C-alpha cells in the first residue's frame, strides 16, 4: 500500500522558505502572488495491506519522525 503524507507548518509559524519563494516569484514578474507556504510531501511504500493498521503505522511514523509536531501539522492519505 502507498501512503501519502503532507507536512505543513502550523498557522502563524514563520515560513522563511515560503516567504523567499513568494519574493522570488515577484521578482520573476509573476503578479498577484500572495502568501506562499512550503511543506513536505512524503510517499511511503508499505507492506501492510490492512488500511486501519497502515493508517495507524503511518500516523505513528509522523509523530515519531516525519513531522516536528511542535511546529508542523500532518495529514495521512492511503492509496490503493
Amino acid at each position, binding site marked *: 500500500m502507498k501512503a501519502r503524507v503532507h507536512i505543513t507548518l502550523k498557522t502563524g509559524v514563520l515560513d522563511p522558505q515560503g516567504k*523567499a519563494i513568494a519574493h522570488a516569484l515577484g*521578482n520573476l514578474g509573476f503578479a498577484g502572488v500572495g502568501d506562499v507556504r512550503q511543506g513536505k510531501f512524503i510517499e511511503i511504500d508499505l507492506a501492510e495491506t490492512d488500511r486501519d493498521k497502515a493508517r495507524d503505522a503511518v500516523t505513528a511514523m509522523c509523530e515519531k519522525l516525519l513531522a516536528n509536531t511542535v511546529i508542523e501539522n500532518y495529514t495521512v492519505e492511503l492509496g490503493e
Partner: protein
Amino acid sequence: MKASVIVFPGSNCDRDVQVALTDSMGRPPEMVWHGDSELPAADLIVLPGGFSYGDYLRSGAMAANSPVMREVVDRAQKGVPVLGICNGFQTLTETGLLPGVLMRNANLKFVCKDVTVRVETSQTVFTCGYEAGQTVRIPIAHHDGNYYADDDLLDRLEGEGRVAFRYTDPEGAETEAANPNGSARNIAGVFNESKTVLGLMPHPERLADPALGGSDGKALFDGLVEALG
C-alpha cells in the same frame, strides 16, 4: 587579467574569494552586486560560495533566476571563463551551464572539513596550475554537495574529460570513505563542454594562504592568472 565576483543576497564567501584573487592577481577583482544592471567586461567571472537567497527551495535555484545570471550565461556561451565555487557550482547547475545536480549530502548533514581531491586534468585554464593526477587538500563546507547525474551522463562526462576533481584518499584512491557527501563516482567538480566553465564544491580560496594551514588552493587562482594574463 580582470575578474568579476558576483554577489547575491546571502553570498558569504565573496570576500574570501576576493582576497584570494587579489593575492594572485595583484589587484582586486570587481565585486558585482546581483542587482547591478551592467556586468563589467571581465576575463573571468566568479560565483562565490554561501547561501544565496538562503538556499531556500533548492540551493542556487533563486540565484540562477536572478537577472544578472542571464548576462553571465550569455558571457559563458561566448567563452568567458566562469568559476562557480560551492553555492556557485549549485547555481551553475541550476542555470544549465553545467550538467547534473547537487543533492542533499547522503548523511543529510552539513559538512565542513578538509578533503583530498585529485586533479583530473591540467589542460584547462582553471587547473593548469596543477599536475594531472596530483592530490591536493582543500576544505569543503556544504549541505548539498552530493553530485548526481544519470549513468549515461556520467559516462559522457568521463569520456569527454569533463570531471575536474574527484574526492580521494591522500594516496589518490577513489574510496567510499573519501567521499564526504555521496557524490556519484566521487565527483567534486565538473566542466562544461568547452572546459571554460568550472563548478566545484571544495573551496580553494579557504586554503590559499599558509596562515590558514595550507595553500593548495592557491594554484587554482595562480593558474587562472597565468592562463588569462
